[in-house]
C-alpha cells in the first residue's frame, strides 16, 4: 500500500475524531459529554501505559499514582483564589495566590508526575516483573496515604470539590493527539526499537549498546507525564477529586485495556480503552434494573481471561494495523505483503 494512502487513512481518522468532538460539544447532554470525555481520557492513559509497559516490558501499576499527582497539582493551580483561603489553609503563599488556566496547570501536573516517576524510578526500575508491579502498587498506597493526611493542602479524604469545569472535549482530543503522536513517533524510531529490545532480551540489548537504565527511566517518566496530564483533565472534567478514586481497581482496568489491545500496540490501546469505557456505560442501566451491581467487572474479567487463553498477545500484538504505518520502511519483498507476523498467534520459536 502506498504512503499516500496511509496518509489518507490518518487524515480520515483525524477528521472523524474532530467531527465526533464537534458533535459532542454541540449536541450531547452533559452526561454524554462526560462519557465521551472519559473515553478520551482512558485512551490517553491506555496509550501511555501501552508505551511504557507494553513496549518496554515494565509491568508498572503506578499509573493511578501519577494521575493523582497530576490531578491534585493541576486542581490546586486552577482553584479559585477566593476559596483557597478557607478550603486549603496550608498552601504556601505563592500557590494560594496563583490561579492558572487549564493548559499551564495541565503541563505542571504532567511534569510533576514525570518528576515523581524519575525519583521513584531510580530504585524501582531495578526490579523486574512482579517485583516492579508490587513496588508501583506500593506507590499508589503511599501517595494515597499522603493525600489523605495532608488535609491543609488537599482537604484529605473529603476531597477537593468545586474544581472549575475547564476540560472540554477539545482539550481531551488535543492531548490524545499529542500523546498518540509522541508515542507513535518514538515507537517507530530507534528509541522504540531499543525499548522493545530491552523487553525481548536485556542482556542482548546491552550488547547492542542500549543504555538500559536510562532508556527504562525515560519510558517510565514519559508514561507518567501523560498519566499526570490525564489526571489533570480528569479533575477538571469531573470537578471533584478524592484520593480514593485512584485505586487498585483503576490500575487493573488500565492494565486490562493494554492486555486486551495488545501490549505495545497504541491502536489496540485506544480501541480497547474506548470499547471498555463505552461497554461500562451502556451496561450501567442494566446493572441498575437487574440490581446486579458488579456485572461490568465480571464481564471485563471474563474478557481478560478469554484474551489470555485465546490470544495471549492481545488483539494487535505489539504492532499497529498495516494501513496506518507511515515512514520510510525498507521495501518489502514481493509476495510478503501479508499481515505483519506479529498479528499471528505467537508460536514457539523454530529450531533445527
Amino acid at each position, binding site marked *: 500500500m502506498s504512503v499516500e494512502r496511509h496518509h489518507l487513512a490518518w487524515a480520515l481518522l483525524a477528521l472523524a475524531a474532530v467531527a465526533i468532538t464537534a458533535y459532542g460539544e454541540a449536541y450531547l447532554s452533559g452526561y454524554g459529554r462526560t462519557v465521551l470525555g472519559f473515553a478520551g481520557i482512558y485512551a490517553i492513559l491506555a496509550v501511555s501505559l501501552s508505551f511504557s509497559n507494553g513496549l518496554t516490558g515494565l509491568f508498572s501499576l503506578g499509573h493511578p499514582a501519577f494521575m493523582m499527582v497530576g490531578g491534585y497539582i493541576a486542581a490546586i493551580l486552577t482553584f479559585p483564589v477566593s476559596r483557597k483561603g478557607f478550603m486549603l489553609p496550608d498552601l504556601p503563599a505563592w500557590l494560594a495566590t496563583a490561579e492558572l488556566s487549564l493548559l499551564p496547570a495541565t503541563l505542571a501536573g504532567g511534569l510533576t508526575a514525570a518528576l515523581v516517576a524519575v525519583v521513584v524510578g531510580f530504585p524501582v526500575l531495578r526490579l523486574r516483573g512482579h517485583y516492579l508491579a508490587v513496588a508501583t502498587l506500593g506507590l499508589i498506597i503511599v501517595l494515597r496515604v499522603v493525600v489523605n493526611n495532608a488535609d491543609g493542602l488537599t482537604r484529605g479524604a473529603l476531597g477537593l470539590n468545586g474544581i472549575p469545569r475547564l476540560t472540554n472535549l477539545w482539550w481531551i482530543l488535543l492531548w490524545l493527539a499529542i500523546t498518540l503522536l509522541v508515542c507513535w513517533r518514538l515507537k517507530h524510531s*530507534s528509541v522504540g*526499537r*531499543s525499548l*522493545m*529490545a530491552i*523487553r*525481548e*532480551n536485556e*542482556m*542482548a*540489548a*546491552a*550488547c*547492542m*549498546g*542500549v*543504555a538500559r537504565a536510562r532508556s527504562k527511566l525515560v519510558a517510565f517518566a514519559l508514561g507518567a507525564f501523560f498519566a499526570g496530564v490525564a489526571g489533570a483533565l480528569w479533575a477538571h472534567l469531573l470537578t471533584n477529586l478524592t484520593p480514593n478514586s485512584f485505586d487498585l481497581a483503576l490500575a487493573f482496568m488500565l492494565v486490562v485495556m493494554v492486555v486486551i489491545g495488545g501490549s505495545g500496540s497504541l491502536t489496540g490501546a485506544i480501541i480497547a480503552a474506548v470499547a471498555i469505557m463505552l461497554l461500562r456505560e451502556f451496561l450501567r442501566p442494566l446493572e441498575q434494573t437487574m440490581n446486579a451491581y458488579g456485572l461490568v467487572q465480571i464481564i471485563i474479567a471474563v474478557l481478560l481471561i478469554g484474551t489470555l487463553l485465546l490470544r495471549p498477545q492481545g488483539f494487535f500484538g*505489539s504492532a499497529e494495523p498495516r494501513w496506518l504505518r507511515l515512514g520510510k520502511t*525498507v521495501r*518489502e*519483498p514481493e509476495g*510478503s505483503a501479508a499481515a*505483519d*507476523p*506479529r498479528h499471528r498467534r*505467537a*508460536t514457539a*520459536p*523454530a*529450531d*533445527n
Partner: protein
Amino acid sequence: MLTLEGLDVWRGPSQVLRGIDLQVRAGEIVALLGTNGAGKTSTLLTISGQLRPRAGRSTLEIDGRRHDLAKLDPAAIVGLGVAHCPEGRQVFGGMTVLENLRLGAYLRDAAGVPADLEAMFGLFPILAERRSGLAGQLSGGEQMMLAIARALMSRPRLLLLDEPSLGLAPQLVEQIFTTIEEIRANGTTVLLVEQNAALALELADRAYVLESGAVHLEGQASSLAADPRVREAYLGLGPTAVEAVL
C-alpha cells in the same frame, strides 16, 4: 589491539577468572578454548563491560589511543567498536529480522545503515528472504547468522563471538566459519570462543586454552593443534584415546 592483564573476575561469591593475561592483535582471529565453566564466556563479558574485574586491566587500543575498558559502561564499549555476539544467539524474538539488524546499528547515526543492511544480506542471503519475518521463528542456524549480522551492523573493529557453532548442524558450522574468515578479510579482528576446538584451531591464528578461570596454554593455533596435551584433552585424538580403543 586488546590486552588483558592479570584479570580477576568474580560472579557472586565465586571467582571465575584468575589472573587472565591475553592479547589480541589487529587483524587476528584468536580462539579461546576450554571446557564448560573454564571462564571463556566470562572473559568476553568482562571485555564488553558486563562483568567488572576486581583486579587487573583490560585495555583496548584503537587508532593509537588506549582505553581502559574496566572503567567504561557497555554502551561506551560498543561505541569504541567492540561488538559482542552473545552465547546462545539471543536474538530479539518478537521483533523482525530487519528490526534486529537495525538495533545492531543502534549507536550509529542512520547514514550508511541501508548500505550495511545490503552488505549483511549479501553475506547471509537467507536473511534477506526472511527480513520481515519474526526473528523468533527463524531456525537455529538462521538465528545464528542474524546474531552475527546484528553484531556486524555496529561496524565493529573487534568482534567477540561466543560459541557460534552451538547446536548447529556440521554443514552450517562450516558455513559460519567460512563467514568468520570473510569478516576478518574485511578488516574486523575476531576473538572467538568455541567448544569445537578442532575447527577453531583450523580457523584461528593463535589460541588460548583456559582451565578453571586461568590461561592453561597459549600459542600458535597450528602448534597447539599438534600439542599432545591439547590433542588429548580437547580434540579427543591423543595417543591414550587410541590405546583405549585398542
